[in-house]
């Protein structure tokens, strides 16, 4: 394990940014989001970013290809460019876990090369949690918030950042900044981990009962009357899906340019009334059905198809950002099992 004093950390950013595009939680216009680091930016580690780090791998909009029209001939242009290597700093353990979920979707056959390119080019530096919040549910989803699963894991204790490479990519990154790091033992980090685990016990959502969410109960849960009440106030906005680190739905759209068409993909939200709309209409006509789809997918369908892995990492963003404060915790408490009362 290595460490660096936080007072020296901008040097570290500087060195990394010479070789890589460096993304970090940066505070801009009052809010913390992952953004490209440039000198002078304020990096904030103790807050949750509004948008998740999935942005860097599966951006909200992404050009696929363009068509250029010249008279009546059409030329197809591949808009993909080699993704430059980049580093994402300060990724919380829950968010680290989200890449496992996304990998299952995008790296399974047929492989989504747009995602794959970025995944290969990106180095994730995880950051262990020391002050989880009441909205944190990571433990309920099997995430150890003291053990970020990433290329490099890091901890901040007493004004120092501890770093430990996990993968080869991680090693490579640490070797780049080796000159700035000093060797360290893990005593302080271990102390912090133990403390965090104690706090976890006090958090109300870290031990949700999800025993009922099994493929066998699929029909029963699907037909629960509770969905009506849970979804009645839903505004049908896309906040929960857009701040979610694991939501992976997208729409492919065309933009008419001056001399042709640009085809791009952008995030879609199952909360929207035109989600998966086809010429014959949409399969889910009511907001209840769309609301149910989201949670059924995260808690039942996805695990049923992915060895029990939930499509939720318990980051709690939806819980804090929903305009009407409806969220996955409330759904789990209503439908997850007996021990939630």
């Amino acid at each position, binding site marked *: 394990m290595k460490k660096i004093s936080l007072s020296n950390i901008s040097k570290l950013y500087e060195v990394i940014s010479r070789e890589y595009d460096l993304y970090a939680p940066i505070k801009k216009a009052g809010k913390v989001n992952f953004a490209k680091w440039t000198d002078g930016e304020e990096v904030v580690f103790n807050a949750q970013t509004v948008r998740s780090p999935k942005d860097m791998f599966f951006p909200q909009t992404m050009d696929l290809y363009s068509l250029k029209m010249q008279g009546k001939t059409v030329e197809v242009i591949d808009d993909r460019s080699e993704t430059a290597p980049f580093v994402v700093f300060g990724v919380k353990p829950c968010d680290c876990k989200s890449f496992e979920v996304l990998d299952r979707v995008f790296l399974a056959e047929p492989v989504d090369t747009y995602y794959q390119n970025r995944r290969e080019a990106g180095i994730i530096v995880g950051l262990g949690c020391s002050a989880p919040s009441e909205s944190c549910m990571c433990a309920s989803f099997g995430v150890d918030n003291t053990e970020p699963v990433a290329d490099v894991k890091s901890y901040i204790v007493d004004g120092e950042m501890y770093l430990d490479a996990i993968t080869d990519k991680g090693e490579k990154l640490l070797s780049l900044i080796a000159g700035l790091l000093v060797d360290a033992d893990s005593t302080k980090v271990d102390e912090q981990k133990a403390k965090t685990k104690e706090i976890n016990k006090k958090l109300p959502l870290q031990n949700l009962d999800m025993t009922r969410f099994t493929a066998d109960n699929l029909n029963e849960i699907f037909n629960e009357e509770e969905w009506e009440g849970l979804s009645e106030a839903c505004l049908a906005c896309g906040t929960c899906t857009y701040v979610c680190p694991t939501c992976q739905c997208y729409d492919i759209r065309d*933009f008419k*340019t*001056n001399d042709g068409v*640009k085809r791009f993909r952008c995030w879609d939200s199952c909360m929207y009334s035109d989600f998966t709309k086809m010429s014959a209409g949409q399969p889910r006509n009511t907001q209840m059905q769309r609301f149910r789809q989201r949670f059924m997918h995260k808690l039942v369908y996805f695990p049923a198809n992915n060895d029990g892995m939930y499509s939720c990492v318990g980051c709690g963003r939806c819980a804090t950002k929903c305009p009407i404060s409806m969220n996955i915790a409330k759904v789990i408490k209503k439908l997850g099992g007996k021990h939630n009362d």
Partner: protein
Amino acid sequence: MQEVKEYTPLIVAFCCNWCSYAGADLAGSSRLSYPANVKIIRVPCSCRVNPMFILKAFQRGADGVIMCGCHPGDCHYTSGNYYARRRMSLLFSMLDYMGIERERTRVEWVSAAEGAKFANVMNEFAKTINELGENKRLEDLRCK
């Protein structure tokens, strides 16, 4: 010596059919010239001009947008330009508030008899836009 291609700004003018478009016709038949980069779109009345059209024009690369209608009180449809006047006042004020140069948008009342005014307005507006240069704050690079 290498020739530098000068940037010519693009101006979209929405003209109501009854007064301003006729004013433009009169400017034409009076051979009063104004820059070729002023391009006119005919609408039945200034009240047909939707703010979306104006934003669309900027998105598509216009550097200035001007809306021309009958003089207040002379609207062919009696009140259309009064509504247009309020709409455009608010929209332009909003664009200004967003930091988009206020000189890029304009409303002028041009009657069917004011061919000279039409040409003057367009010359003057084109000059203003020339000085302002390229529209950067409401551009959509996909359209360039």
